């Protein structure tokens, strides 16, 4: 397997959507390719960081104000 072929399957590997025999080929490639291993690990980390850090907080005061405005309009029938 070449690095390009590995890269084409990177998302499927990350999302756990590869068949067992393909997974074995990907693992085999990883054993001998540090670059692809770094790419895989740092891409996984990228996703994890974005998933675990809220970058657009909705502060409680704003949340309450917007919530109240929405519900007031809904109660009036919009």
């Amino acid at each position: 397997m070449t690095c390009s072929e590995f890269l084409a399957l990177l998302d499927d590997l990350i999302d756990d959507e590869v068949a067992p025999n393909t997974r074995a080929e990907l693992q085999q490639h990883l054993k001998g390719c540090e670059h692809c291993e770094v790419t895989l690990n740092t891409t996984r980390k990228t996703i994890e960081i974005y998933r675990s850090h809220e970058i657009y907080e909705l502060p409680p005061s704003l949340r309450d104000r917007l919530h109240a405005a929405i519900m007031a309009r809904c109660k009036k029938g919009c």
Partner: protein
Amino acid sequence: MATIQSVAGENEQHPDVALVEQVRAGDVSAYDTLVRKYERQVFRIAQHITQNREDAEDVMQDAFLKAFEKLDQFQGNSKFYTWLVRIAVNESLMRLRKRRTGKMVSIDEDVETEEGSVPRDLADWAPDPEQNYTQAELAEILRKTIQGLPPGFRIVFVLRDVDGLSTEETAETLGLSVPAVKSRLLRARLQLRERLSRYFRRKKGSAK
């Protein structure tokens, strides 16, 4: 290649469906529950698309009001959340168009860019690299980095990886094909990885 497993228990009713039915029967407090459940996500999506706090506030209100008005059109064959997100995405794009009059704003145009499709920065990252920054610094880095992506990539990444929608749900929500979602997701992930490497790569001579 393995196919994506369908959600188990397709016949089980999602709790949102019962809430939607209560709202349709005139119980507005059930809508209050739905708004509380999803307001943060809707606000986040609106912020990612409009990149403007005031617009995101307006979009959040308009999306929930529109969903309330249109609740009779909700079929129940998709999740309430994906239906709501679709409304929020459309409202966000409308808001962007208003702001950038005359400028084309679309998420379905294919973005011609090779950036990030081949990893260039191959340096490994420090272990737990985010710990080298304060929460505020990290949030700024993450915001700046994702804002640099083309909108069509950004929103696919947010729906799929941050919100946790499936590929199919993301495609349905954005009116894109499944292959288009997959191609954008890969490029979004690789571009973000590449850009974050500047901040997170292991420093030379550092044991960390």
